[in-house]
């Protein structure tokens, strides 16, 4: 799945080759319909996340106890919730937390996972075996279960969520990177660097890392979708952002009880928001994979 299959001639040509590949990648992505659709939807949510409070017609916090559980209308496009808060505003502003936490958590996992994966793949042997056992043991627990335990242990805050998800992603990403490194380390340029007397760290991070960036990028986009999935699930379970913050997962959890009474709008729009966000990320991920695998 390596993107860069350029024969190693001299460093300059290789450098030029890499820039070329990156440009080519962007050009192909721009022609991909899934990428365009995905990034457009994502962009809309990013705009909501940044300018949410300015776009929203009402404050997401203002309660109106005389106008509770109102069906969607001209005044309240998505209706109002049990406290009379405007659902449209809550959905818009609700995009903020998730779009900050999820990328940060994924980034943390990608950085740590890449480092560990490089070490595991490059050194193999005992280091690989020992780390591999720990990875296996951790992977035996579903992410949501790990999250539930960790958040009850360490307290419910966004920082804890970022750290927990980042740490759980680390072994997963490490495994992918390790597999890619195992293939790379057998290639001539690594042997050449070793003969030149380069240190292990240099070889891992300067020689091998750029050549496994393709799988890492794919892994990042896939994990990002999964991070959004998990974070929203944890907030739905009441372990993430706390009320009265506008958050899609939290709003569904709080308003879920009144659904049988017919107040469908109090959960439907949050559900649609989540679905469009995760689908947009997975469309982008799909496009990136398609381009890199060609």
């Amino acid at each position, binding site marked *: 799945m390596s993107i860069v299959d350029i024969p190693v001639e001299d460093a300059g040509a290789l450098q030029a080759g890499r820039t070329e590949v990156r440009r080519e990648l962007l050009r192909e992505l721009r022609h991909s319909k*899934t990428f365009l659709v995905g990034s457009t939807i994502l962009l809309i949510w990013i705009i909501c996340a940044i300018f949410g409070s300015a776009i929203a017609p009402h404050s997401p916090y203002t309660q109106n106890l005389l106008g509770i559980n109102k069906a969607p209308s001209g005044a309240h496009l998505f209706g109002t919730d049990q406290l009379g808060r405007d659902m449209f505003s809550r959905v818009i502003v609700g995009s903020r937390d998730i779009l900050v936490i999820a990328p940060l958590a994924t980034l943390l996992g990608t950085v740590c996972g890449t480092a560990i994966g490089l070490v595991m793949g490059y050194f193999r042997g005992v280091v690989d075996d020992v780390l591999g*056992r*720990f990875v*296996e*043991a*951790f*992977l*035996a*627990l*579903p*992410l*949501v*279960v790990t999250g*539930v*335990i*960790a958040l*009850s*242990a*360490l307290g419910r805050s966004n920082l804890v969520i970022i750290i927990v998800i980042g740490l759980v992603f680390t072994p997963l990403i490490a495994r992918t990177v390790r597999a890619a490194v195992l293939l790379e380390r057998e290639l001539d340029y690594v042997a050449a660097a070793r003969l030149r007397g380069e240190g292990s760290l240099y070889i891992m991070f300067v020689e091998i890392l750029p050549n496994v960036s393709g799988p890492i990028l794919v892994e990042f986009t896939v994990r990002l*979708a*999964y991070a*959004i*999935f998990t974070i*929203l*699930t944890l907030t*739905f*379970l*009441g372990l993430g952002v706390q009320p009265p913050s506008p958050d899609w*997962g939290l709003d*569904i959890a709080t308003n*879920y009880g009144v*659904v*049988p009474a*017919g107040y*469908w709008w109090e*959960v*439907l729009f949050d*559900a649609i928001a*989540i*679905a469009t966000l*995760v*689908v947009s*990320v*997975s*469309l982008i*991920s*799909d496009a990136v994979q398609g381009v890199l695998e060609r």
Partner: protein
Amino acid sequence: MVTFILKRLGLALITLWLLSVIVFVLGQVLPSDPGRSVLGPLAAPSAVRALDHQLGVDKPLLTQYWHWITHFPGTSTQYQTPIGPILTTALGESLKLAVFAFVLVVPLGIIGGIVSALNFGKPIDRTISIVGQSALTVPEFVSGIVLILIFSIALGWLPVTATAPPGSGFFTQLKYLILPVIPLVLVLFGYIARMARAGTVEALESDYARTATLKGLPRGVMIRRHVLRNSLLPTITVIATQTGYLIGGLVVVEVLFRYNGIGMLTYNAANQHDIPMLEACVLTIGIVYMIVTLIADIGFSLLNPRIRLRAAE
């Protein structure tokens, strides 16, 4: 082959031991005051100390770990009863849900993947891939809530909860489980279809598939005899690894549909800070996952002569 199985078993035991240590350490980190939480805020400190002593939480960590392992699963601080029976009942309930989900999703996923691979690059392939990938990133509670809105609230066809009234027959229980199972199926479908597709594409491009075509075998026969046999092997492993994922999904689905399985039990234990219960649930989840992957690994090697022979060397 025997050495391979023994080696695999040994590794699984080491992993299991590591997991038990991780779970135990997490249990120690969790803020809890067992004596206090049982006796309440008004109890005398001496009574709390006495109960802590009786529960053994004032002993050295290593002793506690040993006690925990040898007395597994232990006693719930929340209910003051042995965890064993509660855990097995919950596990049984979850098993119903999990089996139902797998029975639906495994054939669907494999067929989806094969159809996708046979139409490689065509619109139907793209559609299956994109739908599958999108479905697997939509959280279970989101698809669950939409299903509830449509089938329970708007149409009134199916119940909002997953728990059938006690004493219900098989089909009534099944009816209650339909809605909870769909979110799980949606998430798993994408993974299984993707693996089945990748395996089939690889087998289709292989030398033996080309040879079979060149020697004049009809496409249908070639696919059945040469391609599918090889392509479905990796799918078995994926199905096994998805068990872990499925259990994660069970937590959410069981909470959403108010179903008393192991997911709900874990969730409640974490919320109530019932540490022994939580540790027991988590370790059980780990054990279930490891047994399933172990069986899959061994089954995979039994089916695949290449691994079987390499292991024998």
